[in-house]
């Protein structure tokens, strides 16, 4: 009936089916229904966690649609993280493939050659699928780790490849290449397959959170194939650097410009640049490092790891022992330079084993630490203000209340020294009746004029140039025009300067100037305590480093009042450590539905001082 060969094939197929049936039959006997259900549930959960973020994984190509790396979208506006070395090869723009099978245009936003990170922005969708950024400091050895990306540029339909493994090591340090480039400090080591093309792609935990960006493997011995040893840049580090990159900078890493070595008796300063900030603050050769950022230091490697995650300009506290005494100083980290791209070494240097081949920067790295694209930077500043507005007023802006009345207590040195009643308008106008000190005082801003009135005196106009640098802005700003819809237009100039720290939180630091050229710095948080994006006003100041003359104010304890997030404590602070000078605690806060026309106006019969 059939040709013999075909019959044989049929027979073989039939036999296979029988065998498969037998296997299943045996399985049912040896593994209970409950156990099978658990295995299936486990598998289903894993598949679900992959599906949740599958769409956020990006395949990155250059303009020639050649080459390739990976990336991950973390912001619905199209922002994706990848490796510097991927972007360096691809160029300043190119094509990006998503799991939907489509190619999108991408443009470079910012670079961190030192940490091997870059941010690109995809165009072509209003709301891109994103993955949540996780907390890599909670990652432990033995945790499951899923890598996704486009290894060997396999995916012609742009669908990412998933490889599952475990975390093999944490807090690893992999030395860099070239001058201060591609340093993997405090990174995550995984046995998930990381191959060429995986570079820049996300490393997920099973909760579908990005815990790192896969960037390299121990490839040195056997060519560029997976040997079960991959390294991912920790999300802890990347989170800190994001504002630097969004500011369109070539981000620089921080340094104390001093070398510390393990010696008997501790971690000792063995080399120091006498021009460095820390040297000017008194650190000397032979001093023992005891703490860094509040963490006890017992090992030079541990210190190197901690330091490698911080950008230049980051405020840190350094504790060191000098002779018999121990000192704690605060400073902003100096910047690690990159090698000039113009110079080419006369002779190829021999690479010591274990080192990566030095990368050839195709893009100029000659001006690190400065804003490269003012237009993009302004857009990023506007996004920060927009997100602050969404936080403060809610996304739908249901609130129509024009102003609030606050009863506040004033504390100095832990003691209550007075109280005040404040009316703050959502448009930024305010009126403060203060009863601290000897005489009650009233100050206000009606939108045009700053004024002040001592009890029994006549009201007086304040110098418009000096007034905002007093604590007046701090009095008014928390509700002020910053949260308005067109907040960015309120300023003559605005620039996202980069990453900073305030209230021990990661922050965006913005520098603003009004029409009169008066500078004001604003700090906004990046994440809430759970690590989710949250843009909250943290600090305002006339200066960057909290000089007492700058009238620096921090904002804490946000609470919802009629749909508006209002800080219930404000602190007048000083210096990088934000030392508390004066605290305003809200005891009562109520909306004012009907605002009198002259609520903020300067009392009449005035004279200009």
């Amino acid at each position: 009936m059939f040709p013999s060969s075909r019959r044989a094939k049929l027979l073989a197929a039939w036999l296979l089916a029988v065998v498969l049936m037998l296997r299943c039959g045996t399985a049912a006997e040896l593994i209970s229904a409950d156990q099978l259900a658990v295995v299936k549930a486990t598998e289903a959960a894993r598949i679900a966690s992959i599906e949740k973020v599958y769409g956020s994984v990006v395949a990155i190509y250059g303009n020639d649609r050649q080459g390739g790396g990976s990336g991950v979208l973390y912001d619905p506006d199209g922002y994706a993280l990848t490796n510097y070395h991927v972007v360096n090869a691809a160029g300043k723009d190119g094509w990006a493939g998503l799991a939907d099978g489509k190619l999108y245009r991408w443009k470079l936003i910012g670079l961190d050659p030192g940490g091997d990170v870059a941010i690109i922005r995809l165009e072509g969708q209003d709301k891109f699928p994103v993955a949540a950024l996780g907390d890599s400091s909670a990652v432990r050895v033995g945790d499951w780790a899923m890598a996704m990306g486009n290894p060997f540029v396999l995916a012609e339909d742009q669908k990412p490849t998933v490889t599952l493994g475990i975390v093999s090591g944490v807090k690893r340090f992999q030395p860099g290449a070239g001058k201060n480039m591609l340093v993997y400090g405090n990174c995550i080591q995984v046995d998930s397959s990381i191959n060429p093309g995986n570079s820049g792609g996300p490393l997920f935990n099973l909760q579908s959170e990005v815990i790192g960006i896969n960037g390299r493997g121990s490839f040195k011995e056997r060519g560029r194939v997976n040997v079960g040893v991959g390294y991912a840049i920790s999300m802890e580090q990347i989170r800190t650097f994001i504002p630097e990159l969004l500011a369109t900078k070539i981000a620089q890493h921080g340094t104390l410009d001093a070398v510390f070595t393990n010696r008997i008796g501790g971690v000792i300063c063995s080399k120091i640049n006498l021009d460095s900030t820390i040297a000017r603050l008194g650190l000397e050769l032979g001093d023992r490092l005891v703490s860094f950022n509040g963490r006890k230091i017992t090992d030079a490697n541990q210190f190197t790891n901690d330091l490698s995650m911080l950008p230049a300009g980051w405020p840190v506290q350094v504790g060191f022992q000098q002779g018999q005494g121990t000192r704690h100083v605060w400073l902003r980290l100096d910047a690690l330079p990159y090698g000039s791209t113009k110079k080419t070494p006369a002779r190829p240097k021999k690479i010591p084993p274990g080192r990566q081949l030095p990368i050839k920067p195709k893009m100029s790295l000659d001006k690190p630490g400065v804003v490269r694209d003012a237009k993009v930077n302004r857009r990023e500043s506007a996004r920060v203000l927009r997100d602050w507005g969404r936080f403060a007023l809610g996304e739908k802006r249901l609130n129509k209340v024009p102003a609030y009345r606050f009863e506040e207590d004033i504390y100095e040195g832990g003691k209550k020294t007075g109280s005040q009643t404040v009316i703050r308008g959502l448009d930024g106008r305010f009126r403060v009746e203060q009863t601290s000190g000897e005489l009650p005082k009233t100050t206000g801003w009606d939108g045009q004029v700053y004024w002040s009135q001592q009890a029994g005196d006549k009201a007086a106009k304040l110098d418009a140039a000096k007034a905002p640098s007093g604590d007046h802005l701090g009095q008014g700003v928390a509700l002020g025009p910053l949260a308005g819809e067109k907040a960015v237009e309120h300023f003559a100039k605005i620039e996202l300067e980069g990453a900073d720290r305030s209230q021990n939180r990661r922050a965006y630091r913005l520098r603003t100037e009004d029409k009169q050229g008066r500078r004001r710095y604003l700090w906004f948080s990046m994440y809430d305590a759970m690590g989710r994006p949250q843009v909250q006003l943290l600090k305002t100041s006339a200066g960057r480093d909290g000089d007492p003359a700058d009238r620096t104010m921090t904002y804490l304890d946000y609470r919802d009042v009629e749909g508006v997030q209002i800080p219930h404590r404000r602190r007048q602070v000083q210096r990088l450590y934000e030392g508390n000078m004066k605290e305003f605690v809200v005891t009562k806060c109520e909306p004012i539905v009907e605002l009198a026309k002259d609520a903020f106006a300067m009392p009449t019969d005035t004279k200009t001082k």
Partner: protein
Amino acid sequence: MVCSLNNHKAKRWFSLPAAVLVAAVALGHTALAAEPENVFASAIAHAQRRCVKIYGAGIGRVEGYATGLIVSADGQILTGQGVFLSGTNIRVVTPDGRMHYAKVLRRSTALQIALLKIESATPDFFEVPEKSPVAKGDWVLAVTNLFKVADRAEELSVSLGVVSLRTRLDARRGTQDVPYDGEVLITDAITSNPGAEGGALITIDGQLAGMVGKIIESKSTNTRLNYAVPADLLQKFLAGVATSTTSPKGKGGAKLGIRLFTLTGTKRAPAYIDRVLPNSPAAKAGLKKDDLILSIDKEIVHDIRGYGKLVKLLTPDEEITMLVKRKREILRILITPTGPKTDATKK
């Protein structure tokens, strides 16, 4: 017949060890619960306290570092046979980050393993089981000092895999240079990396299943074998040390029948053969006067003294490879040493 065979295979395949199920259950939890559980954490922590980093000599591309397993409370450490043991300074870094000097107690050419000792109490040590705790399909974790990425007290690297099978490796020379001779556990965890040799292969409840073997690489395909010496063989090796004190193994009993050229009067002189005793292993293997001995079983022979040391470690009736230089040629010679004469005949 066909059915029964497949049935048997099927049973093997589905006899999911409890461990895998435990892991699967916990994995289910990790994916669903808010606070993730790390099912491997306790096994890993157990092993981390019982593994050491070993540093010694390195030659060329052969790295001078490895991993070791603490197997007794008085500082006995199992590791692989490697170049790192050939120098005079073998340094062992215990999990607390302290460094100790170690001496080699014993070696096994067949298993390519060695037993070291440090002069320090090590209260945490691996119980080496007499019976292998793993079967095909079981999950295992490898805890190793690969690529030297962990320094001082930093934790060793951990990778996950399953036991693919237990099989026999035959010592072979030539294209597949396999010094190992015995049964191994093949895993799909990539363990064949520099420094991983001597690492712990543990079950996911922390029992010692084996010790990661030294790198075996195919010269033709550049692929490597990921394998471990099964724990039961390790146990036999350890037990052998304790019981067979009269055994000639490694006690310098092996004879090759070679006299070296010692006229120069220094022990640093190169190991040229002066005379090959008739009917000796050397004569049978075809060694000749004026051959320069370069290496014995991959250990480099620097001089006459080095030759003497290496010969002392040989086991009678166990074939070894010797590299010799004859005029302009380098020859690979297979040679089987004979045992020592008994005390009675000596007298």
